[in-house]
Each structure stands twice: as C-alpha cells, then as structure tokens.
C-alpha cells in the first residue's frame, strides 16, 4: 500500500521482526497462541503443534490443509464423502467472486482443494483424500457446517481411485 504512513510500516516491520524471533524461541514448546503489540501494530499468531507434542491439535494452522472423509456416510459403495474438518463457514471458492474450487462433474485428485472452511478468520483448506468425480456439493456457499458434516460427494466407481 503506497499511501501508508512509513512510520506505520516501520512499526509493522518491527512487530514482525520481534514476532519472528519469538516464534524461533517457541520451537519444541507447547505454546499455541502468541500476540505481539507495538503501538497500534499487532500481530497474532496461532500455530499448530508437531504431532507427538502433548495437547497438539491436529488442525488449525493458518492456511493449513486437511484430508478428510472416510466414506462412512456415503449413500452407496461407489460414493465417497468429503466431510468438514471443523465447525465453520463453508466456502466454495478462495475469494468472493472467484471460480469455485470444484464443480459437479469435475474429476479431483487426492490432495486437491475442494473447499474452504473458515473458523475465526482462519481459512482451512479441505482436500480430497481420494480420486473421484464430484457428484454433489451439499452445502451452499457461506453456510455453516458442523464437524464431519458431508460437504462433497465423490463418485469413485470408475477410474483407478
């Protein structure tokens, strides 16, 4: 932003530099939440923990990825359910007006992002865990979803999935 007060920018850099130092110090600790504030400038960081650290959550790093879905709620054997990894708002695209990640009829690969679930301003990507064809997207854009609510149905009958 060119019209930003350079003093503000300096402050923000200072906060960021301080935050980076602090993050390095967090290595191997169980601290999950950190806020650094200098004047009006504030950076808040919430981090996931490496597996094996007691109390480590397996979700919720900003922009973190999830693989989800075990097919338990699928209506028949050829269908595979991709489920919401947490409570939040469901988005079909990365930003308002952008193309949706997937449409009915698309073939998705394992690891491909199919939706975003937003919780407390953290965007959590939901990825396909198997290859398949999108048969149905069950949630309207911007609707709330619960944990493990089925959001996308894949047909895995054909192909090598």
């Amino acid at each position, binding site marked *: 932003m060119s019209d930003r007060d350079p003093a503000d920018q300096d402050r923000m850099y200072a906060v960021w530099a301080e935050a980076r130092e602090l993050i390095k110090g967090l290595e191997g600790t169980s601290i999950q939440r950190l806020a650094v504030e200098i004047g009006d400038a504030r950076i808040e960081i919430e981090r996931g923990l490496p597996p094996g650290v007691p109390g480590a*959550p397996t979700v919720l790093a900003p922009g973190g990825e999830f693989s989800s879905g075990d097919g338990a709620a699928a209506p028949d054997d050829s269908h595979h359910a991709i489920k919401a990894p947490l409570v939040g708002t469901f988005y079909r695209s990365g930003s308002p007006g952008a193309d949706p990640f997937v449409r009915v009829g698309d073939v998705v690969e394992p690891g491909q992002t199919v939706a975003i679930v937003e919780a407390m301003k*953290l965007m959590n990507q939901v990825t396909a865990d198997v290859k398949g064809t999108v048969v149905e997207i069950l949630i309207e854009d911007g609707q709330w979803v*619960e944990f493990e609510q089925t959001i996308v149905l894949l047909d895995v009958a054909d192909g090598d999935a």
Partner: protein
Amino acid sequence: MFEKVLIANRGEIALRVARACRELGVRCVSVYSTADAESAVVRFADEAVQIGPPATSRSYLHIPSLIGAALKTGADAVHPGYGFLSEDPYFAEICADSGITFIGPRPDVMEKVGDKATARDLMSKAGLPLLPGTVEPVNTLDEAREVCSEIGYPVIIKAVAGGGGRGMNVVTRDDDLADLYHMTRATAQAVFKDSAVYIERFLETSRHTEIQIVCDAHGSGVYFGERDCSVQRRHQKLIEEAPSLHLSDETRREVGEAAVRGALSVGYTGAGTMEFLLDLAFMEMNARIQVEHPVSEMVTSVDLIQEQIRVAAGEPLSVTQDDVLPLRGHAIECRINAEDPDRDFAPTAGRLDTYVPPGGPWTRVDSHCYPGWMISPFYDSLIAKLIVWAPDRDRAIERMQRALSEFEITGRGVKTTIPFHQRILDHPQFRSGDVTTDFVEHFMSEQVAAAAG
C-alpha cells in the same frame, strides 16, 4: 436476560446448566464431540452442534469450533461449566471479542485470582487469614532459608503458577531445603513455564473447607456457606458435605464476609469458591462453578447456576445474605465414578446395561447417564452425583446409605465407587465427623490390613 446460552461442556454439568436455562426460559445449545452424539444433553437442549472428534483438544478445548458453534446458532452467551475452558482467560477474551458473554468473571480478573501469589496478597488485604509464609515469590535460596527459619518446618514450596497437585514439595528439615527449593523451581519452569515459587507452613493434615460465593455486576456479593471436602484421595474429592461441623456461626459469618469482600475488591463477578484449610487459612480461589455446588444449593435453597446466569446477564442477585442464612439442615454428596477402588481407582469404561438411579424424599441425582449409555474412555469417569438432604447429619448419612443401596449400575467391565462410599459412610470416624484430608489414605490401609488379617 440472554436469548440463548451455548453450553461449552459435556456430561452431567452440561445437562445441569441446560436444566437451569430451561427453568429460566432461556434457550440452550449443546455442543458435542462424535463420542457424545447420543448424550442426554444433546437430546435435552433446544439445539445441538457437533464440534469435533472425541479428543478434547479438537472438541471441548477447541476455541474456534466453540465460537463457531455459538455464531452458527446465534447464542449470545457461553456457559463453560467446570474443567475444560472454564478458567481460561483467553477463551473469555475471545468470547467478548466475538460479542458473546462469557458466564464467569472478566478475563483480567480471572487471570488475577488464578495467580496464587496475587490471590494470596489480595485476600490477605481483604482480611482473610493466611498460613504463615510469603505472599511475594521467594527468589533466592538465602531468602527461602530466612523464611523457613522464621515460620518453622515443615514447609511447602509451591509454584506460583501451579495447580492440580503439581509443582509443590514438602520440606521437613533444613538439610533438604536447598535441593527441594531448586527442584521445585525447575519443575515449575518445565511444567508451568514460570519458575516463581512461594513458601508456606505445611499442615500434615487439615480439613478442606471452601466458601461458595456469587457476586453480581452491581457490587453485591453473597456467600452461600461452606462445604467440607476432606474426604478425598490424592486431591480428588469423593464426598462433600454442607455445612461443616467445624465452623461456628460466628466464624462462618466472618470468613464469608471476608471472602465476599476479597472477591469484590478485585471486581469479581459470577460464582466462585475460596478454599481454606481449617483452622483457618486461605489457600486459593477457583473462578468457576464447582462439581460439588449442589450441597450448597440444598442447604440454602438457591439454584447457584441460575444465579450465575442471572448475574452474567447483568441482573442483580435474586437473593440477599439474609435469605441464605442460617443454613438449613445438612446435605451430603457422593461422587459415583466408573472406577475400580480395588485396582487403585482405575477408570472402567464400558456400556451401561443397567442404570436405575435412586429416588424418594430429598434425594437428588445429577447425572447424564441412562441404560445403554457408553462411559467413554476419552473423558472423566463421573457417572453421577448423588446428593441427599436431611434435617441433621446423622439422618443425612442414613438417607445416603438408603439411596446408595437403591442405585443399580451394571455394565460389562464397569465398576463403580458405590461400595467404597458405603464403607466410608459406615466408618466410625466418618460418622463422628472428625475427618481430615488424610482420612481416605488411613481408611484404605485399614481395609488392606483387614483383608490380609
């Protein structure tokens, strides 16, 4: 009053809070992990949201999911119950930031009373007696030595940030002081990320007594008498009763007033508990509703959870001190846990085939269980709180024995603490009322000796 309260908890306390909401005419939302999908509160509540898998770090402790559930359902308040996030200032702050009222004290107040050194300082200023020892952290070994020679051994070194029985060591003689001082600091640093410790006189045995208070946002506070929780095993309470046999009316008034004064002096709002050891020293304050609150309700005829919700909504307390005193009759609570007392109280998870709670006069069961309910290995082992009331303690004990004998709980692999409670209630020392915190330990070694002999 609130429109809708989200209950950020599970088990019996979630149902207890939901019942209070229903009676207040407030709608309630239950949140549940996949392991609790069939729980009683999910059926009872007006709405329910599945928030995560069984692991608490991703469900009942996962703040974004709880806030998400509150926003999804339009809840304007969150009741945290006990345990989980009930004393987490960060959660209270996030609730406030999201426009949701946290039913409990303000985050900054919670933080203050959660710091043991600060709480001791504040309560001492409010006129509550402390054990001989320090209010400020002890920063050097020389300082520690000075304090110990002043107050005399045995002493206990405690982490300022400690809790749950961790981060404390008893020192009985000067020779051990250096080692234990350094060890406590190191443990405190490792476990609580804060090496600060303080020192106080150690009582080998004492009576665990706690004063229940509720303060509103208009500067009023009421104390609801005390509870005696001396029947405990490794800091886990088993039986609680109210009133204590060892507190005179005059002392009750003095300590109660000081407790309220201390709480109000820090701007405390909501329900809280001041823990004391008799006679008579302030130990710490708990900024939440406690498991054993029903015994206080029984002797004061006040629904504490409803008061808690009322004051959080900005309403004044519905009762005055004069409505509450004198305490009426005697109440006892037994915690019925899915644990095997013969195997060191190991938790026994399993599905309940039979669950027939007792009934009859002045017999209350706070429980989320029903036949077919699965006692899950993921959570605490509390099956039910059995509470009875009677005009005096002897008759309350008789009533409790009658109620325990009616309670039928069976399930594959499930053992309960019912037989253990029955034996304690029959013990002459318990009957006499002369119980201190070492009672259960002595009782158990007696049982072992009797079995061997």
